C-alpha cells in the first residue's frame, strides 16, 4: 500500500483545467441526448461557456495564493493565473465565433476539442516541470491538429497535415532539449536549472538551443514562421482565432517561466539574446509578409508573427517591468486580434468565410458599425491611440529602454511603420470613396458574436486609460 503523496491542495490546483476538460465530455454526452434542431447548436455552446466561466472563476480564486502543486509540477498563483485567464477569455471568444460560423457537421466534437485544447494551454501556463510542459503542449497541439482538419473545405486537411508534421517535429526538438536538461541536472523541475552551476554545462547549452528552437516554432518567430500563414488560412475561422492567441499565450508562459526562473546565471542574457534577435527580425519580416496578402486570415497570421515579436521583445533583459508589460500587451492583443476575427466571422456568409480582403470594400457604408469596430482593432494592432495597443507599445518601448535594449525599440518602431500600410490598406478599402461595396448576404443575428465584439471593443478602448499591469506577478513566477 502506497500512501497518496498528494494533498487536497494539489488537486485543487488543477480544478480549473479539469472543469474545462470535463465540460468537453459533457458537451459530447449532451450531443447524444439533445434532439435535432436549434438545440443541437445552443446546448453545447452553453455548456462550453458555462464550463469556461466556471474555470475562469475557480482560476481567479488562485490569485495571490502562490502554491507549487504536485511537487512543483504545477504552479498556482499570479503568473499562472494571469496566463490561464487570458487563455480562458480567448477560448470564450473563440466559442462565440464557433457558435456563429461552426459547421453543423461535428459541431459538438469540434467544441469538445476546442475545450481540451484550452485545458492543455492552461496546463502549460502553470507548468513548473518539463513533464507538465510537454503534456500541456501535446494536449494543446493534438486537439488543434484535429480541429484544423475538421472542416469539409479542401484546404483544411492540408492545413492539418502541414501543422501536424511541422509542429510534431518542433515538439521533437523541444523534447530532445528537455532530455538534455534532464541530463544536465538530473531533475525534470524547471527550477532545478536555476541556481546550479549548469551554465557552462554543454548539455545545458545544447538543450537550451533545442528547447528554444521548439519555443520559437510554437511562437511562430522568424525563421520558424513559414507554417503559420498556411495553417491559419486553411483552418476553420474559429480555430484560427483560437490558435492566434492561445498557442502563443501558452508558449509565452513557458518561455517567460524559462527565461525568468530557469536561466538565471551571469550569462543569462547572452544565452537568451538569440531569441530577442529573432523577435526583432520577426517584427520586420512579419509585417513585410503581411503587405502582400489578400486574405484576412493570412494577413492576420503574418501580423501575428510581428505582434508576438513585440511581446517577446518586452521580456528582453528579464526585468520585472518587462514581464508585466508583456502580459499587458498579450491581454490587449487577445482582445484586438480576436476582435478582428469576430468581424471576419460576422462578415462570413454561408458559402465563404469573410476573409477575402475584397469583402471589405465599401464596408464603411454598408456595415458602418462593423467597419468602425474593425478600424478600432486595426488602430490597436498598429499601435495607434486611442487603444490599448498604443499604451502597450509605449510600455514595451520603455521596458526596452529601461533594460538597455534600445535597438529592439528601434526595430519595433520600424516594424510598426511597415505595419501601418498593412492595416490602413483595410481602412482604405472600407472607407475609400472609389470602393464599390461588396454584395453582402444578411445573416441571422448572432448575439454571442456581437457580445464578444462589444467586449473586445470595450477592453481595447478602456485599457488605454487604465493599463493596470497585473500586479504581484513576478514574485510568483518561481
Amino acid at each position: 500500500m502506497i500512501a497518496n503523496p498528494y494533498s487536497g491542495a494539489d488537486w485543487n490546483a488543477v480544478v480549473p483545467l479539469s472543469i474545462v476538460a470535463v465540460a468537453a465530455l459533457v458537451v459530447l454526452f449532451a450531443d447524444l441526448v439533445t434532439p435535432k434542431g436549434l438545440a443541437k447548436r445552443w446546448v453545447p455552446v452553453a455548456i462550453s461557456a458555462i464550463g469556461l466561466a466556471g474555470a475562469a472563476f475557480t482560476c481567479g480564486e488562485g490569485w495571490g495564493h502562490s502554491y507549487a502543486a504536485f511537487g512543483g509540477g504545477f504552479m498556482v498563483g499570479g503568473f499562472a493565473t494571469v496566463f490561464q485567464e487570458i487563455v480562458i477569455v480567448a477560448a470564450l471568444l473563440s466559442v462565440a465565433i464557433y457558435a456563429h460560423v461552426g459547421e453543423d457537421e461535428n459541431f459538438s466534437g469540434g467544441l469538445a476539442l476546442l475545450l481540451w485544447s484550452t485545458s492543455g494551454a492552461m496546463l502549460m501556463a502553470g507548468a513548473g516541470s518539463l513533464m507538465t510542459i510537454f503534456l500541456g503542449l501535446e494536449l494543446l497541439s493534438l486537439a488543434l491538429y484535429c480541429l484544423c482538419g475538421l472542416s469539409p473545405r479542401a484546404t483544411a486537411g492540408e492545413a492539418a497535415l502541414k501543422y501536424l508534421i511541422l509542429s510534431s517535429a518542433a515538439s521533437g526538438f523541444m523534447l530532445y532539449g528537455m532530455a538534455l536538461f534532464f541530463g544536465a541536472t538530473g531533475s525534470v523541475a524547471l527550477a532545478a536549472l536555476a541556481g546550479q552551476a549548469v551554465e557552462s554545462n554543454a548539455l545545458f547549452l545544447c538543450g537550451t538551443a533545442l528547447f528554444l528552437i521548439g519555443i520559437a516554432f510554437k511562437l511562430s518567430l522568424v525563421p520558424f514562421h513559414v507554417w503559420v500563414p498556411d495553417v491559419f488560412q486553411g483552418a476553420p475561422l474559429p480555430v484560427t482565432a483560437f490558435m492566434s492567441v492561445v498557442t502563443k499565450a501558452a508558449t509565452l508562459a513557458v518561455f517567460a517561466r524559462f527565461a525568468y526562473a530557469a536561466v538565471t546565471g551571469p550569462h543569462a542574457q547572452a544565452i537568451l539574446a538569440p531569441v530577442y534577435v529573432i523577435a526583432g527580425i520577426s517584427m520586420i519580416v512579419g509585417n513585410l509578409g503581411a503587405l502582400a496578402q489578400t486574405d484576412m486570415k493570412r494577413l492576420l497570421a503574418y501580423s501575428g508573427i510581428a505582434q508576438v515579436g513585440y511581446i517577446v521583445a518586452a521580456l528582453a533583459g528579464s526585468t520585472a517591468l518587462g514581464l508585466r508589460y508583456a502580459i499587458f500587451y498579450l491581454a490587449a492583443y487577445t482582445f484586438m486580434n480576436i476582435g478582428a476575427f469576430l468581424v471576419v466571422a460576422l462578415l462570413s456568409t454561408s458559402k465563404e468565410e469573410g476573409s477575402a480582403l475584397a469583402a471589405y470594400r465599401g464596408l464603411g457604408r454598408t456595415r458602418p458599425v462593423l467597419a468602425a469596430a474593425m478600424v478600432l482593432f486595426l488602430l490597436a494592432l498598429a499601435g495607434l491611440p486611442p487603444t490599448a495597443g498604443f499604451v502597450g507599445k509605449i510600455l514595451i518601448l520603455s521596458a526596452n529602454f529601461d533594460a538597455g535594449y534600445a535597438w529592439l525599440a528601434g526595430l519595433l518602431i520600424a516594424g510598426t511603420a511597415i505595419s501601418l500600410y498593412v492595416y490602413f490598406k483595410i481602412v482604405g478599402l472600407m472607407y475609400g470613396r472609389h470602393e464599390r461595396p461588396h454584395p453582402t448576404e444578411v445573416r441571422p443575428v448572432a448575439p454571442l458574436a456581437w457580445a464578444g465584439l462589444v467586449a473586445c471593443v470595450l477592453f481595447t478602448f478602456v485599457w488605454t486609460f487604465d493599463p493596470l499591469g497585473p500586479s504581484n506577478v513576478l514574485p510568483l513566477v518561481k
Partner: protein
Amino acid sequence: MMVLLALVVLPIAAGFALYALPRADRTLAKGIATGVAAVTFLAGIALRDQSMSVRWLARPFTAAFHFADDGIGFWIALLLALCTLCAVLAANVPRLRDFLALMLLLEGAMMGVFLARDLLVFALFWDLMLVPVFLGLLGWGEHPSTAWRYLIYNFAGGLTLLLSTAAFGVAFGSTDVIGRSGLAHLGYIWGPWIFAGFAFAFLVKTPIWPLHTWMPPTYSDTPPPMVAVVSAVQSKAGLYGFIVVGMALLPEAMHAATYVMLWLGLISLLYGGFVALVQTDAKRIVAYSSLSHLGLILVAIFSFNALALRGALIYVIAHGLFNAVLFLVLGFIEEREETRSLPRLGGLARANPKIAGAFAIGALAALGLPGLIGFAGELIMLTGIFSAGYFWPALIALVPIVLAAAYMLRLFQDIMQGPEIPDVPIRRDLTLIEGLAVAPLVLAMVFFGVNPHALTTFDTTLYVSASELAP
C-alpha cells in the same frame, strides 16, 4: 476642469454622436455640429488658468492626463475652435453628416495636442489627429494616393515622436513636463537622440523642406473646410512642439541643432516662395506660400530671442487666420466654378464682389499689408531675428516677403480680375452662411492687426531663458 473637458472631450463625443443622426438630414447635422463648435469656441474664450490632471501611468514613468493652458496653447486652441466653427459653417460636401463628424473628431484631437501638459498625452493626440484627416482624404479627396502620402509621412513622424517620448520618460522618470522648464539635463547620450526624434516629427508636421512633399497634394485634395483647419492649425503643431518641447525641455540639443534648422527654414521659405510664383493651381499656390511662411516662423524660433518668439506666436495666429480665409474662399470659388486652375478662372470680382472682397483681405494679410495681422507678426519676427545677431538670415527672410506680394497679387489678379471667362454663367455671390463663416476670421485679422500685443500674453522667459541656460 469642465472647460477643458468641454474643449477636448465634447467635440470627440459629439463627433461620434453625429453618426447616430439620420444620414440624409443635412441641416440637422450641420446645425448640431455648428452648435457643438460654437460651444467649444465659447469654452475656449472662457479658458483661463484652468488645469486638470488624472493619473494615468505610475510605472515605468509617471504620466497623467494633465491638461492646462499656457499663453501659447491658449491662443492656438482658440484659433482652432474659431477655424473649426467657421469651417463647419462653410462645409457643403456630399455625405455631410460623416464629414462633419470627422471635423469634430479632428478638432477634439488637436485640442488635446495643444492643451496637453504631458508628453505622452501629447503623443497620443498627435497620432490621433492623423486618423480623421486620413479618412477625410480617403472619403472626399480626389486621389487615394494623397491620403497614403499624408499618412506615411505623418505616421513616420508620429512614430519617432512615440519613440522619443518613451525614451524621455525612461530617462527622466516622468512625462508630465510640458510647460515646465529648467529640468535636470538628460545628458549627452540621451538628449540629442530624443531631440532628433521629436524634431523629425515636428519638421514633418509643419512641414519644412525636404519633408514637405506630402503637403501640396494634401492641401489641394482635401475638401476646403478640412484643409482650412489642417493648414491653419495642424501645421502649427510642429512649431508649437519646437517651442514647448524643444526649447523648454531639451535646450542643449535644440541649440546644437540651430544651424541645421536655420538652413532648413531658409531653404523652405525661399523654395516655397519661388515655387508659389509658378504654380497654376490656386490651392497649391497657397500651399507653397504656407511652406514659405512656416519656414520663416522656424527661423524665428531658432533665433532664440524673446522678441522673435513673440513675433512667431503672432504670426502663427496670423497665418492660421489668413490661410483659413484663403482656403475657405478658394473652396467657395471651386464649388461654383468647378475648377481651381488659374488659366480657367478670371473676372470673378464683377459678378461676385463679396467673394472678391473676402479673398482680397486674406491675400493682403498674407502678403503683409500693414494694419492686418500678418504685417505685425512679420515685423516683430524680423526685428527679433535681427537683434539676435542673425543678420543674413534676417536679410534672406525679406526675400519671401517680396515674393509673397508677387504671388498673392498674381493669384488675386488671375481669379478676380481680367476678362471674364465667357462660357461661365453668372454664379451667385457669397451666401449668408458662407459670409458668416468668413466674417469672424476677417474680423479677427483686423482686430489683432491693430492690436497684436494682445496675443503675446504668455511668458516668453519660460522658453527663452530656459534655452539660454544651455551652453
